[in-house]
């Protein structure tokens, strides 16, 4: 069991390291395509122009955008955890003020021992809705944040279970991938908003150029320009949607795994099941956790709003697996444990 679990853990860590690198490379390549695509279109559009007119022959856009992309990726990777924590308005718990905070610090210390990772830094999000997330780039530099609501609502065992779940994310390095993704998704959203105006301006110029080329003698090149242009524009428009889908695909299966790891650390799957029930039962959305960090949380902080507004579409767009399935799986684990110990649940 332990040997098998540790092998899985090692594979999981490796997969997360690899995916983080792939994500960063993909991000830079995406920027390169945005830039070089623009260069190519402009180049093809200006080849037919008069000799004294402007000829776009050097890929300035490509070089500049690739450099920008690499810069954002590097900055996003390095500052991801801080950005995520900052965006939620969390404050660090260094000297616990109340009994509950002391309990939180104790519980995190206990779980760090159980998981065999260094104690993460502890943060408190001033929000009445129960939720929690972990962030960080490796086991040595990790952070755990819980909301005030979680602290108020959960018993000691339930708090322990939630922290165990989050430390599962830390231990198998989910946090590295998910934090990097949060930083890059945030960058794409920002860029899309900011550059939207610029893109619409460029579209008009490019469109005029390609029409000019199409009207001339080289019809083939004109068609190529149009196809490229359409592809390029679609990429621009789809960028935030693609990044959102990436965030969803990346997080759904991980939650089941982290649930299982949390249950393994506490040896108490039932506590996590009841904690999830309480989190699910709380009505308010977690307003201080924004869309960019939603996939980091134990329960979707936007879930309820999405359900109310979009109904069936929410099933497709959810970043988290259905709570009922997670709870059922945990109850199954609890039953297996009791059975293995020769006991049967009394109720």
């Amino acid at each position: 069991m332990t040997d098998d679990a540790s092998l899985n853990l090692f594979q999981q860590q490796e997969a997360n390291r690899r995916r983080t690198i792939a994500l960063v490379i993909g991000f830079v390549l995406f920027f390169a395509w945005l830039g070089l695509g623009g260069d190519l279109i402009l180049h093809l559009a200006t080849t037919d122009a008069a000799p004294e007119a402007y000829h776009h022959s050097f890929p300035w856009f490509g070089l500049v955008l690739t450099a920008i992309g690499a810069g954002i990726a590097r900055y996003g990777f390095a500052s991801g955890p801080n950005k995520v924590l900052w965006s939620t308005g969390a404050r660090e718990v260094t000297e616990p003020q109340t009994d509950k905070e002391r309990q939180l610090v104790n519980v995190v210390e206990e779980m760090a021992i159980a998981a065999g990772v260094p104690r993460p830094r502890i943060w408190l999000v001033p929000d009445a809705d129960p939720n929690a997330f972990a962030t960080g780039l490796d086991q040595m530099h990790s952070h755990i944040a819980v909301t005030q609501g979680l602290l108020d609502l959960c018993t000691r065992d339930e708090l322990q279970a939630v922290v165990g779940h989050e430390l599962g994310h830390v231990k198998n390095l989910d946090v590295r991938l998910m934090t990097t993704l949060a930083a890059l998704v945030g960058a794409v959203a920002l860029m899309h908003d900011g550059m939207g105006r610029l893109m619409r301006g460029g579209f008009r110029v490019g469109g005029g150029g390609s029409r000019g080329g199409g009207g001339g003698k080289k019809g083939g090149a004109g068609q190529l320009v149009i196809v490229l242009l359409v592809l390029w524009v679609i990429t621009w428009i789809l960028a935030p949607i693609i990044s959102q889908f990436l965030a969803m695909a990346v997080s759904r299966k991980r939650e089941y795994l982290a649930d299982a790891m949390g249950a393994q650390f506490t040896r108490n799957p039932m506590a996590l099941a009841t904690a999830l029930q309480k989190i699910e039962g709380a009505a308010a959305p977690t307003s201080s956790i924004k869309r960019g960090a939603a996939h980091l949380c134990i329960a979707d902080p936007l879930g309820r709003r999405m359900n109310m507004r979009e109904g069936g579409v929410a099933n497709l767009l959810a970043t988290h697996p259905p709570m009922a399935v997670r709870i059922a799986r945990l109850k199954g684990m609890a039953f297996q444990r009791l059975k293995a110990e020769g006991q049967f649940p009394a109720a």
Partner: protein
Amino acid sequence: MGLILLIVLAAVVLYGIAAYNGLINLKNQTLNAFKQIDVQLKRRHDLIPNLVNAVKGAMDFERQTLEAVIQARNQAITAGANAGPGAMHQIAAAENQLTAALSRFNVVVEQYPQLKATGNVAQLQEELTSTENKVGFARQQYNDAATQYNTKQQQFPTNLFAGIAKATPAELWEITDEGERAVPQVDLSMKPKA
């Protein structure tokens, strides 16, 4: 022919190095996990005098329970002084005694609600709960590490290199107290109690 032999030899040597390093790695993890238990046990021993002092005045008539806790603590410290995986049986036995004494103590404290309301008893009890949990989780972590280490030593072909790596089976931290192991009786017959 000679080339093939060389390749096979190189492969065996490379595998041997990997297996050796893997065993050393696991051995150190096990030792580290054992040290972690030690750290937590020390915390527990340091905490008990504070707790006893905080409740001594209010629980003068429960002197027996308090004395049992203090005595178990002193025995555990003595057992811990000659630490090392060899002395584990004694340490485990002494610590289990202490656990039993502390749980009796906790039951007694629960009977005095006014005790929890006054002073820092509630805080100390939280600390005690946490320390007990830390001891438990450190033990769990040690047992997991030790099991992994032992399994690797016994599995073929790693077991061929166990001697070179001076790997010996690590002892698991077991519950020696029969009371702790006993399965609670659960009556599911739903018959009315006579």
